[in-house]
């Protein structure tokens, strides 16, 4: 089973990298960009086919390591 975990900064947490990228996009003349927030994507392969067990394992992975929940949110998507 494959899964994708996306970790993003919580709203209100300063994201200087996102701001710098936003500025670079504007300087390239790409119109219509009002804001950029940078995050992380983890593509994870799991043994077994039990969806509930996979979701539980991924939630534990996010809480224990992949995200720092003081400043970050995470989202888990199972891809069958």
């Amino acid at each position, binding site marked *: 089973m494959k899964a994708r975990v996306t970790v993003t900064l919580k709203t209100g*947490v*300063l994201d200087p990298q996102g701001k710098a990228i936003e500025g670079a996009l504007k300087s390239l003349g790409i119109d219509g960009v009002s804001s950029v927030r940078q995050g992380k994507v983890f593509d994870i392969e799991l043994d077994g086919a039990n969806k509930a067990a996979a979701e539980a394992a991924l939630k534990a992975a996010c809480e*224990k*390591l992949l995200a*720092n929940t*003081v400043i970050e949110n995470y989202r888990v998507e199972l891809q069958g």
Partner: protein
Amino acid sequence: MKAAVITFPGSNRDGDVAKALRQAGAHVAHVWHGDYELPAGTDLVVLPGGFSYGDYLRCGAIAGRAHIMDATRAHAARGGLVLGICNGFQIACEAGLLPGVLARNADLKFVCRRQHLTVERNDTAFTSAYTKGQVIDVCIAHGEGNYICDPETLARLEGEGLVAFRYCDADGKVTAEANPNGSLDGIAGIYSPGRNVLGLMPHPENLIDGLVGGTDGRGMFASLMSGKKAA
């Protein structure tokens, strides 16, 4: 004073802090991150500066989950002293020993320069050799030193006197201009509620010899040697 300096893959200030501790008179043991136990009789655990695990994932995140951190948390829970410097501060936060996060410097620049700090209180095991409000001149070298936490945590840190050091100018004024990384309230270091755990971004261990620029860092190691328990 028996100190245990933990070496993680990518630590690079472990030798410097060991030298500072030995200069002050401590017995220093070097401990590997994969070990499960601290040497018997350890008074102080030091999480040194560097770039543990290449700063992968988040600074200090992987080191914060090392086996030795279980023993370090147990040591801290017993009231034992823990000192986290720079990457060690990041590791202490990631390991749950201290609240908050060291985020990317607000201006995105890695800062490596001299920096003045105010000593917020001198009744702790780490600062008794300084005077309250003393301005010390040490080094900083980091790209992720921007201390942030939620408003409730900040209010608790300020209300309970858990801010250890603040970035300031040469006159001791805590200003936005003197803040190298955007940290809330100019915070350069914080204590745990028992004041037995200290995390700070600056490097006192680098200012222990007049030959290399100053000795304002010595006070921290002298304080630790005085045997004062955590305030």
